[in-house]
Structures are given as C-alpha cells and as structure tokens.
C-alpha cells in the first residue's frame, strides 16, 4: 500500500527547484494556442491549468518519433560504424494522466521482451513520473474499460490528486518516488483525511475488455471491419498520438561521406505498412489495417503479454480527421451477436 502525503499547492514551485537543482529536466503539459503538449518547464506557473488530455502523449520521452541509432562513415572503401552513446537526460514527467502513466508499462512489455531495447530502457530508467489523477473526463475517455482508472497509480512513481483546497494528495508509489520525496522531504506533509475517490472524474465502463479479447478470437473475418473503417482515410494520426503504439521503421540518411541510421515511428494505418518488396501486401485495404490495429491492441498483445495494448486515453478518437471513434467501435464489436 502506497504511502500517502500532502503536497501543498504553494510547495510545487520549491519541489520544481529541487528537481532542477538535482539536474533533472521537468516536462509538463503546456498550452500553446489550442495545443497542449509535454514540454520542458521551469516553474508550475507554466503548466496548463484546465485540460483533460494533451494532444500527443508523453511516449516521446522514452520512444522518440525520430531517434538516432548509429552513424557510419565511408573511409576509402571501408565502412566505419560508430555506435550511439546513450546518456539521456534525467527527466521528471509532471502531470501525466494515469492512463498515459499506465502506457509506459505496455511500452516496456514490448521493448523489454525477447530483445532488450537499450535505447528505450536507458530513457525509461532515467525517467520518473509524477502523475496527476483526473478530476474530469470527456466522452472519449475509457480508461476504466481497459483496466485503468482516473486515480490509477500504475506507472506513476508519485501520483498526485488535486483536492478541493487545490492542494494535492500525493501517493508515493515507487522507489523513484521516494527518491523525489527525499530531495525535499519537508514539502510533503502528513496525509489529509480526504477520500481520494471524491475528487476523481466519473469514467463509466463502456465494455468488458476480457470479453472483447475473447470475442476477437473468432472475429477476424467479420464484415464489421469494412463497415467500421469505411470513413477511415488511412493516416497515422491515431498511432502517432497513441501512448502505447510501438511500431517503428528504420531509415538510413546518407551522402557520399556516410550516414545516420534513424528509428522513426510507423503506423499500421499506412498503405505501405507491411508492404512486401514483391509488391504483395497482406493488408492491402484500409479495413484490413483497421482490423490489424484493433487486433494488435486487444487480441495479440493480451494473448502474448497478458496486457491490453490500449489505456483508454481516447486520443486517437479526438485526433482522428474522420472521427473514427475507437471505444464506439469496440463496443460495437462486443455487442455483435
């Protein structure tokens, strides 16, 4: 059972100072026009006030959209390879929603399975999460349908819940969390009597994900995929705002002297995704790619890792240019006779 403390709202500033003087960069939701995104901040004042969700997730802190893996040089007729030195900056992600926080464990499951991905792991290891429970939610939120919740502590090192007073109930969950507290023990007072749940958003359960997973087992050839994806235009927005999509693509950028090998995000929405050199594509049309997206998250990952490839943040639906609403479609699948 995580240790509970009180963090006064006016103490946040000092906490940030401590973190910075400990050599950590702080990433927190920042508002720019109608975009809210995780960016480096130096004081709590810079943090966006009211928001349900950032447009893009904090995935990039551990799995950047474009990451250098190695460099090579042509010397005479030989190729010299120069490995990437890994020393990511110590980072604290502040104000991460419980759904996103939970997302890190999904990423970890994939990147630390048979192959240990040093790039991902070194970043994750240097990252601590000060999560923030949700006081409000919108119709796109469905964390509770995929095993999470607005106050869920999974993936956070410390989880803050804003109380009526504006002060925060701090739950210290991991050693990394303890470490942060130890930087400024006096900022963390004794836990208040308030019941955390009173301050959490209402997020109704929309479907049973175990039921969904079972259903999908025999759903591969269902016509519903075509029906649902008719309006999908085939972009990668859903995957690129998703906190747990892990597909990537390797690109070499070279000139006469040498080059750089990059790892870039990829999306199952693209027509080139899994296109073979032969020209054959096992997922030739959009409906098959949509099926892949759902299957991957709610059937393959659960089967393989006993983990759902979705944390119910609702970003994909909010960002979709064609209003593909994941939760709506998942419900539809569950309810199909």
């Amino acid at each position, binding site marked *: 059972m995580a240790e509970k403390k009180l963090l006064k709202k006016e103490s946040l500033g000092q906490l940030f100072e401590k973190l910075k003087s400990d050599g950590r960069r702080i990433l927190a939701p920042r508002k720019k026009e109608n975009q809210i995104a995780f960016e480096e901040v130096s004081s709590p004042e810079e943090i966006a006030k009211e928001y349900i969700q950032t447009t893009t997730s904090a995935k*990039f802190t551990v799995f*950047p*959209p*474009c*990451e*250098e893996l190695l460099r090579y040089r042509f010397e005479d007729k030989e190729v010299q390879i120069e490995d990437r030195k890994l020393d990511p900056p110590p980072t604290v992600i502040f104000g991460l929603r419980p759904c996103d926080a939970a997302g890190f464990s999904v990423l970890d499951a994939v990147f630390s399975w048979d192959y240990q991905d040093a790039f991902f792991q070194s970043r994750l290891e240097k990252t601590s999460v000060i999560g923030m429970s949700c006081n409000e939610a919108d119709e796109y939120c469905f964390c509770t349908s995929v095993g999470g919740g607005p106050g869920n502590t999974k993936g956070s090192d410390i989880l803050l819940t804003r109380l009526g007073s504006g002060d925060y109930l701090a739950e210290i969950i991991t050693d990394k969390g303890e470490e942060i507290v130890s930087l400024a023990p006096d900022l963390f007072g004794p836990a208040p009597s308030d019941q955390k749940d009173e301050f959490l958003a209402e997020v109704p359960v929309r479907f049973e994900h175990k039921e969904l997973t079972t259903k999908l087992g025999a759903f591969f050839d269902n016509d519903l995929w075509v029906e649902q994806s008719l309006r999908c235009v085939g972009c990668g927005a859903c995957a690129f705002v998703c906190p747990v999509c892990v597909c990537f693509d390797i690109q070499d*950028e070279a*000139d006469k002297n040498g080059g*750089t090998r*990059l790892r870039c995000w990829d999306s199952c929405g693209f027509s080139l995704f899994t296109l073979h050199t032969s020209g054959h594509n096992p997922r030739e049309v959009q409906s098959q790619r949509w099926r892949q997206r759902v299957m991957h998250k709610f059937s393959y990952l659960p089967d393989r890792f006993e983990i759902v490839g979705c944390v119910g943040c609702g970003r994909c639906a909010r960002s979709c240019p064609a209003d593909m609403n994941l939760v709506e479609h998942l419900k539809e699948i569950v309810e199909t006779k």
Partner: protein
Amino acid sequence: MAEFEPKIIAFVCNWCTYAGADLTGTSRIKYATNVRMIRLPCTGRIDFMLLLKAFAQGADGVIVSGCHPGDCHYTAGNYHARRRWILFRSLLDFVGFDTRRVHFAWVSAAEGAKWAQVVNSVVNEVRELGPFEDYQKLARVGVE
C-alpha cells in the same frame, strides 16, 4: 580565418547554358571556382526537388539556367520551367527561405561571357549572405 567560400550548385540545360559554359572555357574567361554544374537535357527536366536536395547537400546557393525564351531546343521546356520557378520561388519566400540563394538565368550557347558573369555575381552575393546553416541544421532538429 579565411573568407567564407560559398558552395554553389548549378543545374543547367545541355543545349544552351552547358554549351555556353563550354564557350566560356574555349574563350578562356576566368570565373569563380565555387560552382559545380549538373547537366540536364532541358530546364523543363529540372525538378524543384533537386534544388531542395542541393541545399540539403550543403549548397549555399543554387543556379538554374537554360535557353532564352523562344530558343529552347525542345521549344517549350524553358517556358514550363519558368512557371515552375515562379511558384516555387514564391513558396520558398513564403516559408521564409531566403530566395537570394536561388538564382535563375537564361544563358545561351553564345553567352560564354554572361555565364562567367552570372557565376561571379551569384558567388559574390551568396558570399555576402554567408553559409546557409539554417537549412543544413534542420536535418538534426527533432532527432533524439
């Protein structure tokens, strides 16, 4: 430190400007060494993406040159090219790309002297502007 020497890449058509530059040579007219010429059949063939690639490849300035209007070996290639450049220039300018780094010229097979003069003036103008780091730096922006 030595004065900055700009790297200039020129895309020229085979029939007028390339031949014009040949004439510059046969007339032994001296000009700046900064330019590297790439020969294409016609200005109509010059894809605007080539110019972007030239800058990505570290060019500080680019020259595009071909036959004068009416003289195109293929009769109309240069007219098509001209429209392409009208739009491309305005787009570059609109995204804040300094078009003083992109130069267009008509140099005929008879204008050996003009070619030398075009190269020299472009080299001088671009030398004034300094190295085009803005563009090359972009390749690292956003790479973790």
